[in-house]
């Protein structure tokens, strides 16, 4: 089973990388390699990430003090390097982590608990300190401080399932979703642009997409804009933006 767990860790690492948490992603790829030293995908991804982080560090070192006005809502503009096409693909919704990974009480641990829960482990629901809701909220706040809005949204969705009426959950989720959407939309660029599929149909079937990404991809026919895709996907804006950003990141589509 270590190979299976390692693969799950790679998936989760890719997930974190999309949400901008490169350090977290590197940590997971490292763990995957510890479990399965022959995992080529983990090794390649780790190498890519390290070269990218190195390039970033070098760039930062050359720039001197941190630049004011380059962070925050402008999102992708502030990125020093954009993700390269041709990276292995991932499925955003299928983040499953094995038992016993991640530092206690961090976001990854909570995601792992989500996995355990599916396997039937009883959970304690409540609002007091130490309750699952509280842990989720603290985890989400930690991730938000680290600008990991994607991870925070996942935790807050879980939290909202537990306490649908909780205003703190609602407010946090709203905030993190809005920020995440803004980041993903910035990655897409002008939403009036019409994206095109770069790959031939024969190549598309070899991608690793889920049916929702398949649906969005099928709508991209050279006539509909990103804005239109948000309308016709039938999914939330966040889910659609995630899929489009993923397709763009992986070089499946290009902005027109």
């Amino acid at each position, binding site marked *: 089973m270590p190979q299976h767990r390692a693969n799950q860790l790679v998936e989760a690492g890719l997930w974190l990388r999309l949400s901008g948490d490169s350090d977290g992603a590197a940590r997971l790829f490292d763990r995957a390699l510890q479990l399965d030293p022959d995992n080529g995908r983990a090794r390649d991804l780790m190498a890519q990430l390290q070269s990218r982080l190195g390039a970033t560090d070098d760039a930062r070192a050359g720039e001197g003090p941190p630049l004011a*006005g380059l962070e*925050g809502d*402008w999102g992708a503009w502030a990125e020093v390097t954009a993700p390269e096409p041709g990276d292995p693909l991932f499925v955003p919704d299928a983040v499953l982590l094995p038992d016993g990974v991640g530092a206690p009480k961090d976001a990854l641990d909570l995601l792992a608990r989500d996995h355990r829960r599916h396997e039937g482990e009883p959970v304690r629901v409540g609002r007091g300190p130490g309750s699952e809701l509280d842990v989720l909220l603290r985890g989400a706040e930690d991730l938000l401080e680290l600008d990991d809005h994607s991870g925070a949204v996942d935790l807050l969705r879980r939290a909202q399932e537990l306490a649908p009426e909780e205003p703190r959950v609602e407010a946090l989720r709203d905030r993190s979703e809005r920020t995440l959407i803004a980041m993903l939309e910035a990655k897409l*660029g002008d939403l009036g642009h019409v994206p095109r599929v770069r790959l031939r149909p024969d190549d598309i079937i070899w991608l690793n*997409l889920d*049916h929702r990404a398949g*649906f969005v991809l099928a*709508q991209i026919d050279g006539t509909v804009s990103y804005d239109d895709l948000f309308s016709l996907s*039938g999914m939330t804006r966040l889910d659609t933006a995630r899929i489009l950003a993923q397709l763009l990141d992986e070089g499946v589509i290009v902005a027109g």
Partner: protein
Amino acid sequence: MAESEPLIGIDLGTTNSIVATVQDGQPVVIKNRTGQALTPSVVAVAKNGKRLVGSIAKRQAITNPQETVYAAKRLIGRKFSSHPVQDALRTLAYQVVCGQHDDVRVRLAGRDLAVPEVSAMILQELKADAEAHFGRPVSKAVITVPAYFNDGQRQATKDAGRIAGLEVLRIINEPTAAALAYGFGRTVNGKIAVLDLGGGTCDVSVLEVNNGVFDVVATGGDTFLGGEDWDNRIIEWLVFGFAKEHGIDLRKDRMALQRLKDAAEKGKVELSSVRETQVSLPFICTPPGGGAALHLQAALTRDKLEDLSADLCERVVGITSEVLGEAKVRPSELKEVILVGGMSRMPRIVEQVRQYFRREPCKGVHPEEVVALGAAIQAHALVAQQGELLLLDVTPQSLGVAIAGGYVRRLIPKNTTVPTSATETFATSKDSQRVVKIMVLQGEHDLAHQNELLGEFLLTGLRDAPRGKVEIDVTFDINAEGIVSVSAKDRETGQRQSIIVAASGGLTEEELRRIMDEQRDWLVAARASEEVKARRVELDTLARDVVDALTRARLLPGGLGPDVVPRAEQALEHARHVRAGEEPAAMARAVALLAQCLTQLRGGPPRATPGG
């Protein structure tokens, strides 16, 4: 010399709509802003609250069924309680409710809309496409309707045009428009048949053309037979094949079903010109319990499609035979047969029609465009006063009164040119009858209750006499606007009662004005929203350039004034704040400010901020 105002002809269809015009003497179709001739007659409010019209609305119809209105034409101008509406309700996924006057209302995004309001959204889209084509406003149009539409349905279509900001010059019959497009007003004297097989309906009409006058002598069909039925056969075949292979029913997944529907329609269209097509739907579904998404791959041949839909093709021939039988017209009597509608491209249909009529049917390269082209020709002729092409305004259905025994006495037959007038004398049907009830009816059925009741009134104070001894003159007057006035006069006493019946599309004038005001407000808001969107893009582009220029300025600061960098940072911060808002004017100022900062960062002289 001032350019003449552009005129358009609109085929407002059940499934698709088309707009056309006459340009340099030639009728041409105006493509929509996505480059297509056909605009699906679908209106929706997406889950993000955006109003969608046309292909984009159609493409999300299955994933958002409650908020997507299609086939509004089946409902326009009809009473909620009528049979056709109650039949249609069984097939519609969106919610339809009863209005205050037994009219039909469609519930869309929590609002109850009158059907003409929905049709107006489609007309507005076509109008906008025409305006984009001409580069100037368009306000005059001829719109086509099925030959069987009554006055109420025609009036409701006119109301839709008014709501959309169009002056409807004339409403003409679809088969007549098709015949006009083929120039049959000039070249044919005699009977012609028009078989219109569209996306959702199959209409068969027989026209008598006589020196440019078109008379609809028979019309009929099936309002629930069209291209969508062929699509459904393909979908069933694909679903069955996939279930056999993977044990999964794709119909249960809305996203899969939407893709199947799109693929089925595409495959069907392709098979009109090729013998085999590939259906490829990668990642169509994720198996229950997870795992890699599955692909659907299938090869569909023309023979297979014909096999799947043989009964549908036979129904088309059956309907045609029925309509001709009712009109007592033999196929050999027909001078021409015209095929209209996208579905009539199917080779099997063409073959069956050829066999039935024993003649080659007229089918242009684009059979779905001929009705709109005919409407455009008529719009042009109306303004250019080309007498030989001018269709006269006629009563679409017969008008009469109810008589004893539950029958109808027709005073004005259908296709009578308006204005017109007719008087007939009636007598009392009972001894000592002191009151007669005049029921004004429209329709072709001999039984009174099978026709539409336009209005009724009583003529009282008749003298006491045996039946048949009191004579009453009933007069129908129809003016040029189609308003019918009916009067009844006691011949002996001269006592008179009357009623005025104006065709109603289901909306009162007050409601119509309110809807028109709302539409105007919506258009203003939509334009403002477009402006905000455009300004945001402008801001984003400029801000990216400023961020780049700032980076360079920090690395190589020489030559810049001491306040240039902080000023640019401040401008960026301001732009960020303004971008989050909805104020186009503030965005325009922020754009100007950023542009100024960019010039300074690039070493240029400071410039005055436009407008600031």
